[in-house]
């Protein structure tokens, strides 16, 4: 979505510039997994090619890209709370069912490159499924959430994932399984549920995380991990398209922008108005 915005801005001779991101949205080292027993990749550094591309600013349109993340799961497992803790750093005790869908946009700077996630919060209530499911398409990341204190919600994540995968090409999305409300459980109780969850995560080819929106435990680390994995995939896809091609395009757009902005300022100085249609 932002991608479109920025491209539109380019057409209207604006500089492609985004305001700086918050310090806690800057990712320079590759974020770690939660448990090695259920994680999407074990390495603790960016892919060599990705690192190089970022340093040489050969990331093409990745900086303009907004990756789509969908959060699914039963009602009252805390999907909205999880997103609100990360995006707004707040926690509301009162339960308010999400109607249909909502979204937040989080901007990052990863390995020096701007990157954005559009996080879609979906309603867990059955009656809104027909509306929310229309937003599953094109998800780079699928997050299935369950309540660590309600084992039934863990079993249902399988169905939620199937629903989301039906709308996406198989294997095209990263899958995360997230246990919420970690603060409600004692250490041993949490570990017992985690064992089941890790087992299911492996079946689903998902990465497992335990979080608490109330205390904020692991919330930032989780989304940072999500952003880094999505970013790396985006850059690799861009490089696959042809690094040469991407380089030329990036170079060309920069030079065009410079030209046009200078033209625009000249026009402004001479008083001739640029056509408004």
């Amino acid at each position, binding site marked *: 979505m932002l991608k479109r915005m920025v491209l539109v801005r380019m057409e209207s001779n*604006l*500089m492609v*510039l985004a*305001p700086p991101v918050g310090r806690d949205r800057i990712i320079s080292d590759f974020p770690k997994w939660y448990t090695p027993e259920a994680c999407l990749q074990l390495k603790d550094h960016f892919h060599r090619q990705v690192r190089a591309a970022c340093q040489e600013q050969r990331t093409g349109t990745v900086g303009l890209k907004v990756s789509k993340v969908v959060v699914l799961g039963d009602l009252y497992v805390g999907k909205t709370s999880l997103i609100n803790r990360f995006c707004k750093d707040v926690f509301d005790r009162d339960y308010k069912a999400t109607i249909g869908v909502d979204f937040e*946009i989080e901007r990052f700077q990863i390995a020096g490159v701007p990157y954005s996630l559009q996080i879609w919060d979906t309603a867990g209530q059955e009656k809104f499924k027909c*509306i929310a499911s*229309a937003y599953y398409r094109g998800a780079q990341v699928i997050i299935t959430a369950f309540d660590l204190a309600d084992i039934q919600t863990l079993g249902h994540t399988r169905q939620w994932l199937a629903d989301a995968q039906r709308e996406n090409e198989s294997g095209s999305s990263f899958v995360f399984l997230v246990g919420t409300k970690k603060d409600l459980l004692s250490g041993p109780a949490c570990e017992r549920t985690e064992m089941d969850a890790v087992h299911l995560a492996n079946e689903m080819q998902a990465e497992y995380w335990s979080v608490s929106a109330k205390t904020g435990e692991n919330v930032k680390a989780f989304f940072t991990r999500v952003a880094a994995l999505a970013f790396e995939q985006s850059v690799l896809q861009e490089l696959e398209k042809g690094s040469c091609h991407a380089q030329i395009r990036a170079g060309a757009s920069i030079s065009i922008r410079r030209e046009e*902005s200078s033209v625009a*300022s000249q026009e402004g100085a001479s008083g001739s108005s640029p056509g408004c249609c």
Partner: protein
Amino acid sequence: MEKKPSPGKEEGEGGEEEEEEEEESGPEGALGKSPFQLTAEDVYDISYVVGRDLMAITGDSRDVATRVTQLQFKIVRILEMLEALVNDCNVTVEELRMERDSLRKEVEGLRSEGQPPNTEEVNPGTNKIVVDLTDPNRPRFTMQELRDVLHERNKLKSQLLVAQEELQCYKSGLIPLNNSQLARRDPQALVTSPSSSKGGKQEKTIIRKLFSFRSGKRT
């Protein structure tokens, strides 16, 4: 009871000359009527006519007289049964007529009271519900309306985020002020829904339309 002429017809009768005058529309006429249109009076007329004829026969012969007397009792019995049937039928009709009138009054009463009490008794059929418009928790919008409102809300939210970001760019000096006019030329709406946008003008009014309907209802 067999020999009573109908009271309505007594007025026109001249006492002695009963027979001749009544032949056309008098007691004899009751025999020509459809059995389903008979009244109790008609039955009395018939019994009078039959009784009179029997009397005439008994005057001729004794042998005949005993037979006719036997016959007479039978005829009386038939007439009694007929009387009972006709009376019963008329009572039923009268009961039904009263029932109809009272129901008619009830319907008129409910109609004049207005719709609300009436709707509660309406059975709309399977898979349908009756909505009480005064219930604050009643369902208000269809799924399609909700879908449209969410689509529009998402669009507006993304526009807001873009505007906020742009504002931040100006505030931090990333975009020089002389570019501001060009920034305003950026009219393209952002689409964040799964489906592509439809007619722009119509979409802009969905939320307003739905909520103005609600506020209109309240006043």
